[in-house]
Structure formats: C-alpha cells, structure tokens
C-alpha cells in the first residue's frame, strides 16, 4: 500500500499548508517591486489607522450598547442566512472545489470523507483572513476582551457557519442518478424555521407596541431620528427576548456569543457551547453519506466560469441565450464596429430589474423630498434630510460609476492581440472605447437621476422654473458627460500606463493580496486627485466667464450656458490631448506588460 492511501490527511495538510506558504512567500517576494510595496504600505497605513485610532485603542471603556447591536445584527443575519440556505436554491459555491482540486483529488485513491475534509481545510485560509479583519473591526468600543479570545470566538463562529452551509448544500442536492434520501435534515430545518416564524409572529404585538410608543415623538429633527433607531432596536430586542423565540434561537446565540462577548469571563462561559455546536456540525457533515462528487464537479465548473467571467468583465452576470439583437451595418467606419460591440455588450449585461429597482428607490426619495411625503406634520426636516440623501446618492454615483462600468479598454485589454491586429489607428481605438463608455455611463445616470433631479429642483423652488429648470437638467447632463469623459479616460490611462494596477483579465497566481488592495485604493485616490486637477482649469474658466457675462446685459441663464459651454470645450481639448497620448501608449503596449496575459 502506498503512503497516499495510508495517510491522505498528511497529503491534504501538505497541499494546503504549502499552497498558503508559497502564496505568502510569493506576495512577500513581489514586495521588491515598487508598485507592490507602495500598495502594501497604503494598506498598512489604513489598518494602522484603524487599530491605533483613538476610538479603538484599548481604553477599558466598553460600550455595551454597541456590542449588543452587533450581536443583534449577527443573530438576525444568521437567521436570514438559514432561510436562504434551507429554502432558497442551493448555492454552487459551497461545493465548489478548485479545478486543480477536482482533477487531482477526485480521481485519487481517497474516500469521500477525505474529500469533505479537503474542502473544510481549503476554506481555512479565507476564514483566517476574515477572522483577522473582524477582530480588528470589533475592537472598536469593546476593547476589554483580549484580541486572541475575540479571534477564537470569531473563528468558531465562521467555521460553524461554513460547515452549516456545506451541510445544507449536501442535504439539499443529490446526483441525478442517485435515489434521493428521505430529506430528514431539510425537514428538521424547515420545522425549525416555521416554529421560529410562528413564535416571532406571536411575540410581534408586544414589540410593535414599543415601536408605536416612539411615534409619540412629534418632531423629525436629527436627535429624534436617532431616538427612533434606538427604540427600533429595543423593539427588536424585545422580540428576540420573547421566551419562545429566545429558546429557538439558542443555537444561534450560543454560536455567536463568544465572538461578541463583553469580557473574558463572558467569553469563557460562552465558549464551551459554541465548541459543542461546531463539533456537532463537523460530525454531521462527515457522517453524511450523500455522494456529492458529480455535483461538486458541476458546481466547480459553474463557479470557475463565474469567477473567470467576473475577472474578465467585472460582472458575475450569466449570459442567457435570449438576447437583444441590434444588427451591425456591414458598411461604415471600423470605429463604428467597436462602438457597436461595446454597446451590445452593455445591453446584454444590463439587468432591467436592477435599474428599475434603483430608479424606484431614487424616485421615491425624490418624491418624498419634493412633496414632503404627507405623513408627518413637520415635513421640512424630513424633506431636507431626503434631499440630502438624494444628493449623496447622486454624488456617490458620479464618483464611483466610472470605476464600476468597465466596458472600455479595461475590458478589451484582455483581447490585446485583437486590438493590436485590428486595422485601426490606436488613437481611434482609444477614443472610441472611451467615448462609448462615457455615452453609456452618462445615459444610464441621466435615466436614473434625470427625473428625480427635476422633482428635487422643483421642490427647492427659487429662480429655476419652467424653461430654466429644463435647461438646468440639460446643462447638468452635459456637465456630467464631460466629467465622466475625463474620469473614464483616467481609468483607461491607468489601464494602459500601469496595466498591472487595474484589474483586467486577472487570473493566475500573481493576483490578490493586501498590496493589491492598496494599489486599488491608491489608484482610486490618484484618479480622483488628477480628475480634480484636470477639471479645475475648465471650471475656473467657465465660472469666470459666466460671472463676467452675468454683470452685462446678458440674462443669467445665457451667461451660465456660455460658461458651461466654455468649460466643456476646454475639457474636450484636454481629452483630445490625453487620447493622443493613450493611443501611443496602446501602440507600445505588449502582452508581456500585462501580467494576466502572460499565460
């Protein structure tokens, strides 16, 4: 008998510990490169600011309210997760082995139990990273519990969650040619969830009574909004403390308790129960006789496909056969074909439900902001609060949309050989890619925010009425387009000049790690800073001109329009210069410059 069948655990231990060690060494080695050391320093500075901030430094002061809220959220979150794992469609990712694991371990002379153990072992690296992050985050306001104890509590909780999810997936899936076993585990879970729902329904009236009490608060000033949140928390806590609900939630409470303990004594009391729950889960998974290899192969392939798609396009969307068709004319400029390709991709990855939901939320916010909502006597405060929320959402979209919408060179550099062999000048390729992305991003933002902006502006009143209001919306859209143009150009510039800094068709062993996260932050900050610099000149010129003209016989709207047009023209001039430079950069770019294309 050879050593592998005699001691498969040793082989698994070797596989995962070596893999983690090699990955760590690889990430340390690459710190010799300036871009990685800079990224790592950025992350280190950020983490240090979290750990050593005055709020976090161990002061001995515990904020039990904060700790209670965290525990409350985690209990509700876990109850919700149980509903999803046992009642919604089974997840692919719980059974998703890596392609290498499938090809090496599944045909190997190891039993099913070893394969399950391999899965459990392989998730440990991710769990440990999560434990470190959450230990740091949870130090805020609850510094009495030593970090090691907090980490152990968190690991127990995360490992239990991971095991439960795997168990739910195993219990709910079966290979097509294997007779389905009596779904005992599923029945137990469903009965548990139904009992929990019934107990919560019975306890709900008393919790609602607490909440109704808060309605006596007559004003919506900020302090009362906070008061209401606290009353809501109390109502929820009352619901969870109902004897029946409390009893049913005991396993969840027991599993979460060590992670959220106030102090060492509470942790010591809570830990044994959490360990017992973890051990029960472990035995449950290992004793489950369900053959899962065939399902795991399918799950792994689907999961790998989704990950690969996400790395290529930044989207987890799965393309479906029913598709939009917009026939490309066979006659016209080659650049038109590129624009058509990107528009088609945008439409095919577009999910109407997501946009409709976003529009609905923004419109409701704007409607309430515009009309006062009609459900409170003091409408001014809530209106201004919602108007502020709307402006914040809009500003957030302006700042982040170009980072999220990536159907430009960030997507197409994965097809660099195609771009380089296409018979089109490189500056035309760059310009077309950026213009198409700008048009799509601006149109999506105009659709999402256009009508709501109209409602908010109308409610504010003032000098803008009728045609002025319409002009403001049109001018705003043009200005937004100009900002998006430069913003998207800068992202493409980073993709061309520093291809290793922008996630393109990422893959292979050279990705991930703290230094890469740091690179992403630095890129984001750098792009926003450069964008501000590039916009400063045109904005100053446009504003100056508008101010000058406003003092003459010209109407204010005309002066503002001329100022806006001037600013936009200057932005376009800056963009043309950048597009030329980027064209040259694309000409020089080679597959070897992009780490993910070197395979």
């Amino acid at each position: 008998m050879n050593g592998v069948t005699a001691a498969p655990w040793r082989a698994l231990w070797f596989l995962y510990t070596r893999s983690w060690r090699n990955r760590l060494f690889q990430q340390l080695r690459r710190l010799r490169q300036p871009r990685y050391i800079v990224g790592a320093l950025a992350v280190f500075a950020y983490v240090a600011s979290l750990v050593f901030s005055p709020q976090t430094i161990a002061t001995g002061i515990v904020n039990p309210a904060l700790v209670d809220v965290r525990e409350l959220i985690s209990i509700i979150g876990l109850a919700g997760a149980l509903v999803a794992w046992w009642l919604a469609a089974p997840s692919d990712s719980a059974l998703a082995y890596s392609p290498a694991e499938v090809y090496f371990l599944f045909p190997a002379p190891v039993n099913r139990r070893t394969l399950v153990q391999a899965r459990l072992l392989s998730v440990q690296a991710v769990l440990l990273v999560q434990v470190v992050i959450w230990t740091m985050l949870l130090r805020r306001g609850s510094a009495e519990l030593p970090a090691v104890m907090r980490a152990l509590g968190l690991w127990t909780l995360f490992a239990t969650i991971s095991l439960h999810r795997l168990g739910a997936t195993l219990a709910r899936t079966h290979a097509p040619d294997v007779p389905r076993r009596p779904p005992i585990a599923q029945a137990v879970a469903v009965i548990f969830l139904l009992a929990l729902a019934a107990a919560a329904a019975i306890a709900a009236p008393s919790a609602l009574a607490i909440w109704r009490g808060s309605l006596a608060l007559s004003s919506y000033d900020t302090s009362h909004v906070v008061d209401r949140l606290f009353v809501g928390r109390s109502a929820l806590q009352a619901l969870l403390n109902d004897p029946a609900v409390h009893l049913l939630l005991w396993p969840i409470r027991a599993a979460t308790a060590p992670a959220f303990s106030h102090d060492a004594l509470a942790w010591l009391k809570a830990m044994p129960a959490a360990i017992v729950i973890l051990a029960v889960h472990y035995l449950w998974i290992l004793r489950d006789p369900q053959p899962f290899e065939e399902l795991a192969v399918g799950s792994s392939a689907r999961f790998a496909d989704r990950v690969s798609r996400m790395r290529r396009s930044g989207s987890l969307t799965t393309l479906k056969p029913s598709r939009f068709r917009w026939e490309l004319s066979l006659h016209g400029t080659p650049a038109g074909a590129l624009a058509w390709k990107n528009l088609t991709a945008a439409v095919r990855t577009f999910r109407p439900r997501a946009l409709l939901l976003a529009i609905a939320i923004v419109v409701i916010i704007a409607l309430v902001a515009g009309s006062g909502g009609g459900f409170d006597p003091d409408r001014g405060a809530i209106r201004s609060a919602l108007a502020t929320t709307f402006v914040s959402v809009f500003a957030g979209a302006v700042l982040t949309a170009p980072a999220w919408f990536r159907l430009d060179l960030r997507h197409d550099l994965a097809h660099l050989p195609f771009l380089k062999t296409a018979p089109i000048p490189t500056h035309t390729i760059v310009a077309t890619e950026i213009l198409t992305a700008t048009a799509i991003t601006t149109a999506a933002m105009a659709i999402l925010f256009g009508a709501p902006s109209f409602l908010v502006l109308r409610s504010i009143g003032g000098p803008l009425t009728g045609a002025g209001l319409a002009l403001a919306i049109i001018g705003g859209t043009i200005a937004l387009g100009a900002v998006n143009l430069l913003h998207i150009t800068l992202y493409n510039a980073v993709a061309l000049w520093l291809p290793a800094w922008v996630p393109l068709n990422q893959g292979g062993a050279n990705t991930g790690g703290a230094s890469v996260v740091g690179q992403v932050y630095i890129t984001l900050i750098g792009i926003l800073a450069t964008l501000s610099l590039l916009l400063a000149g045109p904005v100053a010129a446009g504003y100056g001109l508008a101010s000058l003209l406003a003092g003459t016989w010209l109407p204010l709207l005309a002066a503002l329009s001329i100022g806006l047009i001037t600013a936009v023209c200057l932005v376009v001039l800056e963009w043309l210069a950048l597009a030329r430079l980027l064209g040259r950069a694309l000409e020089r770019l080679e597959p070897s410059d992009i780490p993910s294309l070197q395979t």
Partner: protein
Amino acid sequence: MQPTVDSETGVTSPAIEVHNFSKRYGAVAAVKGLTLAVPRGEILGLVGPNGAGKTTTLRALAGILRPTEGTLRIAGYDLAISPVEAKRRLAFIPDEPHLFDYLTVEEHLRFTARLYGVAHADLRIPELLAEMELTEKRLALPSELSRGMKQKLSVATALLHDPAVLILDEPLTGLDPVGIRRMKDTIRRRAQVGTAVILSSHLLNLVEELCTRVLLLNRGEVAALGTIAELRALRPELATASLEDLFISLTEESAPVSSGT
C-alpha cells in the same frame, strides 16, 4: 513609400519580409537577427523547442509586438510605418481562440467584416458559416460553443477578409480529426490562391505534410531553413531517420555548447 503591388492580386511579392528582426525582453533576447522572406503561395512551418522564439516571431509579424530591432513587412507595407495598411492584409489565428463573450457567432463575423471593410460580406458570411459548419450555431454565444467550434469561429473571422498573409500559432490545438482535416484543407486552399502562410507547430507530421519550407528556430536564432529535403541533406547520416530525430539533431547541433560538455 508605397509598396510594389501586383495588379491582379493586389499583393506584393514576397508577402512577408523580415529583415534583421530582434526582440528583447529586458536582458533576455527572445529572437536574434532573424531575416527571411515568404513569397505568395508558400506555407512556411515554424518549428523549434519551447522558448525558441516562435510565438514572439508570429506575434511580431501580426503587429502585436514591436521589434526591438529590424523591419517587418506585410505585403510590402512596413508594420512600423504603415501598420493599418499592413494589418488590413494579414490575419492572425492564435492557439487559444480569444472571442468576445457578448457577441454571437454571426455577430463576430459581421463585426470583423465592418472592421476590415470586407466587400460582399453579406454573401461571404453565410458561405464561411457553412464551410466551418457553424450555420446552426450562428446565434450562439461563445460560452455555448465547444473548444473546437470556437477555434473554427476564430478561423472564419481570420479568413473573412481574404488576407494576403495568414499567421497561425498551433492551428490544430483542440480540433477533432474532422476539424484537423478541414483545417489542413483550408490552409492548402489559401496557399493555392496565393496567400502566404506561416504556421508554428510542434506536430512535425503536420509540418511535413503541409509546409513547402521549414524554419527551425532555437534560442531565438535560425538553426535551419529550407525544404524538408534540404534539411535532410544537412545531416546525410539521418537520411532514413524520422523527422523527429532530424529536428532534434539539428536543434542540438545549433545549441551553444556549455562549458564542460
């Protein structure tokens, strides 16, 4: 300067001209001083061990890589001076088909037709779909195609604009026996109508069967160039040996002798 163009075919002769081409990656020289010419209608096989510089040479000829030194001409157009004109006349088929996730089979062809300004594309596209047995899959996205079908689509997009120069990197990867036969026929037919073909492959029987001449690269340098008969003449003692033995022998002969051996 405009190239000398054949009035009938619109193609200069030779179709591919490489003069003193070198490519370095930092301190590493991938190709050193390569000079060669491929006339119209010739199929040149590019062979050599891993790391010999085959893919670098093909990628440079396709305009993907910029030479560190030397000139590359496609149908008379210098890739450095007139890249767009040169690229209009060439097609590159990589070993791994890189298709756009969001375009269907037919849309890939329409997209390519527009990109290259193909005349009568509305007639040519159905022909190519039928030739590659992709008609039934014309509305399928790449994710719905097998590896072989993707390769066929890649070939169809390459042939759509009737290139004067066809560059293939390991063209038989992933194809089934019928696909291999069709690919060989396609390459032969293209050569018969005057296309200059340059292909790299580790399959020596393919090279022997298809290629009129063979270029053996080793460590970025030319180890041998000529017809199979000419290469055999270089090693008379291997006259009856297999092609594999001949190439291994020629490769070893050209390798620099390390100290102590």
